[in-house]
């Protein structure tokens, strides 16, 4: 059997991901996580000195804390298998990527293992976040200087 012929066979046998089902599950799980985030946020607004504008930071940190607990007990990967992007896209997913790598590489020590591999999976998110922030600021600065837009 030729390569091309085999690739055709492979295409016909391999099941397509259930797009709709996966999207629905992602919507549900992602929505729930964000709603929990909203509740945490409200908690900080009511019981501490945070406004709607400043409650974002403690909320995100708290969500990452929840991610640590769930990851440590091996529950986050079960949520991940069900929710797909629904649990990967919220910051809890970012936390899971960092924390799971940290736990995994503990066996190589705190410096070379945890330190060296902490951002093994999530490093690209930090990289592209910072770099794109730089370029967006630069472009906006140029546009403002040219008088195209204002701050």
């Amino acid at each position, binding site marked *: 059997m030729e390569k091309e012929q085999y690739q055709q066979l492979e295409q016909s046998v391999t099941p397509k*991901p259930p*797009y709709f089902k*996966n999207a629905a*599950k*992602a*919507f*549900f799980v*992602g*929505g729930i996580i*964000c*709603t*929990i*985030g*909203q509740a945490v*946020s*409200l908690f900080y607004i009511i019981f501490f000195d945070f406004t*709607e504008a400043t409650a*974002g930071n*403690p*909320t*995100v*940190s708290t969500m*990452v804390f929840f*991610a*640590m607990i769930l990851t*440590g007990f091996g529950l986050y990967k*079960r949520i991940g298998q069900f929710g*797909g*992007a629904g649990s*990967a*896209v*919220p*910051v809890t*997913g*970012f*936390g899971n990527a*960092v*924390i*799971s*790598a*940290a*736990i995994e590489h*503990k066996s190589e020590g*705190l410096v070379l293992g*945890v330190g060296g591999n*902490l951002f093994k*999976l999530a490093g*690209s*998110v930090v*990289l*592209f*976040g*910072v770099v*794109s*922030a*730089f370029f*967006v*600021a*630069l472009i906006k*600065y140029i546009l403002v200087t040219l008088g195209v837009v204002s701050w």
Partner: protein
Amino acid sequence: MVMTFVFAFIVGGIICVIGQLLMDVGNLTPAHTLSTLVVVGAILDGMGLYEPLIHFAGAGATVPITSFGNSLTHGALAEAEKHGLVGVLTGMFEVTSSGISAAIVFGFIGALIFKPKGNVD
């Protein structure tokens, strides 16, 4: 206040669906998907569109990873506005995202107290 919860659910859900479609239809790995969304968040903030989304949906916009791009860009833009071109450069050293710091700290703590488990269910 109830509506804020509803909007948080819907907007957060929609951002996750976009991520799922990038993974399923676009065939991207989770790392590629998250990187893409962060860049999208940064660009949206540059256009001044992310802040309104946060006002509208609260945690529905601050909890998804797109808010990383937003908060990093926000810091850089604020510096650029204050100090001009130099600010664009120095802004990079001042920008922070609480998610990143939290992940580092909790990652370290998690490594100290937990062991990797491989069970399926």
